[in-house]
């Protein structure tokens, strides 16, 4: 038996009294190649709790149809006549036609009076059934009238009323997934969410109770209201729990859509005390980012091969900013990381930034490791990026967690210089600095300045005013 296969009726009987929890585990896995013929022998099913087990099997079949957008193959005829949901009168056969437009989301139920918290499943079906779970929900008017909502809670609490409005985020996300089938498996299998949602799609805080205890019981990621709820969760839930604070339904849906890696809204870094730039074969992109960030000190990391380029760039920049040259190997990851870490840690009080657009891959990777260690943000200029746009990555929250990634647009170059810089040439991916053979530093400095400045050289009036200053 493959671990993803459905257990046979016989094995479920062997697993009794844990058969129901075994079946519940299947909601934590993607419904890929489930073979429902494993359940053809109804008589072999566990004797204990058989009715609930049959309902759970029918629910699994319904979930398969919802997620895979097709009727489960080889469904045993007896299963079609089973009612999957305690709150609805319809049997599986009657519900299957609605599976195409349905979705499921998981939300936690806090345990009252010493009871453990549990995960509940919420189904949204695009039809009005004669009976559904609305009567068990508080604030159920948030559910659109054209939908039916069905909730599956642990058997012993199946008829209990669900207090509070923390189920609303699950319902709202289920509605998103109902209209976006690609989202259904991810939402149903990978996430658990809690939060209230107002009519404008804002996610509002809820009572967490003892829900955080569930973090160790499931491998699902968590969506919680941003602010106090997520802060409390991080202090009470297990440290390895992946939890994300969300402010709006759109943000929550984006988390589910993008597997939890969402674009972070960074502020353009300004002012920057120190910019560390990896220098590879192309000087102009390195020069472009240096001018755009315009740090107080520029640290050019070069290899033996690019030492000459570093010197050319240093001379081309002249007195615009302090330039420091730092050598690093281009083929030793550990040495790159250690050397860069040592340098970065020396100036920990300054605002620092690492630009890893240039350099080879080992240099880039080493720089990333060093930046992660020192909690320093990284910037990268994509070859096709529009003017003044940079990709920004940081590990500011926690170096063991996923990096935050986002795009920033801005330019720190002082106005006097900014107007004189030939940004079009600098940002153009086709711009190349012609190399002299044999190397002629002075000629290359002049050529680089021709690329950098609109007039082909640093404007005299700026030089004059700077001298006066």
């Amino acid at each position: 038996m493959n671990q993803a296969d459905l257990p046979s009726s016989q094995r479920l009987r062997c697993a009794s009294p844990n058969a129901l929890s075994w079946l519940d585990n299947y909601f934590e896995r993607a419904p890929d190649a489930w073979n429902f013929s494993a359940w053809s022998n109804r008589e072999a099913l566990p004797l204990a709790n058989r009715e609930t087990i049959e309902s759970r099997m029918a629910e699994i079949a319904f979930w398969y149809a919802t997620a895979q957008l097709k009727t489960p193959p080889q469904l045993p005829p007896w299963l079609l006549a089973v009612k999957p949901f305690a709150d609805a009168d319809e049997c599986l056969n009657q519900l299957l036609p609605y599976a195409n437009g349905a979705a499921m989301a998981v939300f936690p139920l806090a345990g009252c009076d010493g009871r453990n918290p549990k995960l509940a499943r919420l189904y949204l079906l695009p039809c009005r059934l004669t009976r559904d779970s609305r009567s068990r929900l508080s604030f159920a008017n948030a559910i659109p009238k054209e939908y039916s909502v069905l909730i599956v809670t642990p058997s012993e609490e199946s008829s209990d009323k669900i207090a509070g409005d923390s189920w609303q985020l699950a319902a709202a996300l289920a509605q998103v997934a109902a209209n976006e089938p690609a989202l259904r498996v991810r939402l149903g299998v990978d996430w658990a969410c809690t939060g209230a949602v107002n009519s404008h799609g804002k996610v509002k805080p809820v009572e967490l109770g003892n829900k955080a205890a569930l973090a160790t019981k499931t491998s699902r990621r968590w969506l919680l209201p941003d602010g106090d709820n997520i802060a409390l969760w991080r202090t009470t839930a297990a440290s390895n729990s992946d939890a994300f604070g969300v402010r709006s339904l759109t943000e929550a849906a984006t988390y589910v859509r993008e597997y939890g890696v969402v674009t972070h809204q960074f502020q353009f870094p300004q002012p920057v005390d120190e910019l560390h730039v990896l220098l590879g074969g192309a000087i102009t992109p390195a020069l472009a980012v240096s001018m755009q960030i315009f740090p107080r000190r520029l640290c050019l990391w070069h290899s033996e091969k690019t030492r000459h380029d570093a010197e050319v760039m240093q001379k081309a920049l002249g007195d615009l900013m302090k330039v420091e040259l730092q050598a690093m190997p281009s083929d030793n990851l550990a040495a790159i990381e250690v050397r860069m870490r040592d340098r970065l840690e020396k100036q920990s009080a300054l605002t620092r930034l690492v630009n890893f657009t240039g350099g080879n891959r080992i240099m880039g990777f080493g720089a990333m490791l060093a930046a992660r260690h020192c909690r320093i943000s990284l910037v990268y200029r994509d070859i096709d990026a529009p003017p003044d746009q940079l990709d920004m990555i940081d590990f500011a929250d926690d170096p063991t967690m996923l990096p935050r990634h986002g795009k920033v647009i801005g330019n720190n170059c002082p106005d006097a210089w900014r107007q004189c810089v030939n940004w079009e040439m600098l940002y153009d991916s086709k711009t190349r600095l012609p190399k002299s053979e044999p190397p002629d530093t002075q000629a290359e400095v002049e050529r680089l300045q021709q690329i950098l400045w609109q007039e082909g050289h640093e404007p005299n009036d700026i030089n004059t005013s700077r001298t006066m200053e």
Partner: protein
Amino acid sequence: MKTPKRNSQPMRERWTRSFIQQYLRRSELQRLALADAEEDEPAPSYEVADAPPLRPRAQAAPHDLEELLPGQIRLLSQPKEMVWLLILRQWDSGTWLIVPFSPFSFPATEEEYLLGGNRTKYLDVLQFWNARTLNALFLRRSWLVSTLTPEEMQCVEILFDSSLSGDAVPDDLLANTGLPIVSADDPRLDYKTENLVRFTDLDSADLQMTELFSIATAQPVANVVTASATAKPAAAEPQKHRTILLPKLFSPLPMAAAGKNEVSVCWTAPATASALLAQLCQRQGRNNNAVKMAAMQYATWLDTGKLPCEAEATPVLMWEWPDAQKDSKGTPATADALFFHRKRRTLLGTGYALRKHDEGTIVLADWVVEEHPRINSPEDITIFLTAPEKV
């Protein structure tokens, strides 16, 4: 159990009278049958040396190893006589509280209860005075006959609890019991003695098993080397190489097997669980440094949920039975099973292996410890499949 005189009294007198009549009649019939047998001439002896061995006309149905549940009526396989019993509740780790049925259809004493239920006459009366605990390893080797309704089970629970606490029994339930024994020459005392005898051998085996469990759960068993029981002596050297030495019982998985799958080492022993435990619980010495095993395999763990890392977690655990013995007729093959913690070498629980419809499963069904060492992976469990216990 308090038995105040109430409206139920006439009914109880009637049951008791009927029981005594039935018992005396049967005793008399048994006595006559025994006397006839003694008077009969001895049976002629036949030459049977060349006759083919006797074969059973029909094969016994497989035991219902799966799912022990309160309320089940089961027929035990071990006693010589047919013994039906009711599973009342789980008593302790790996043991169940059972209440035997009386062979008579009327309650004999105040500690017997006429269940009725129109099943059959020998499933009418429960002997609460004969209630006992039984190890799951024995209890699973039985056949499921019927199940009590929830209402019947409720009555039985009330009666049993009253017998423990001494609380008054509701009159409607009391009406279905007999009267207490007050005289030393009451024939019902003989009946009780006869019925206790039915369990003598099983009780003795159960006690021995419990003692072995308490040793094997408390201290590490011997990590002896194993010898293949199937190895045949070479023709030229009949006395040498009678056994082939295999690895120690609790060796870690070899590198080739580790990490490939979530597997446990699974030994098949050509002995019963009690015999194997007795061997393993002996101190490792000169003469007992090898235990015979038929085979060693790797059983793949079936992911029914999280492994029980916490000491108190005792869920049912299951493995694929890699090479279940299956006869040509396709009848289910079964084995009893012992489960040890590999590193601690202490007993964790018992269970069974079962093959049905070409699907073999090993099940850790009954934990014999309330708290167990941490189990991080299936490799931490070593399985022994054994022959069914005999009494």
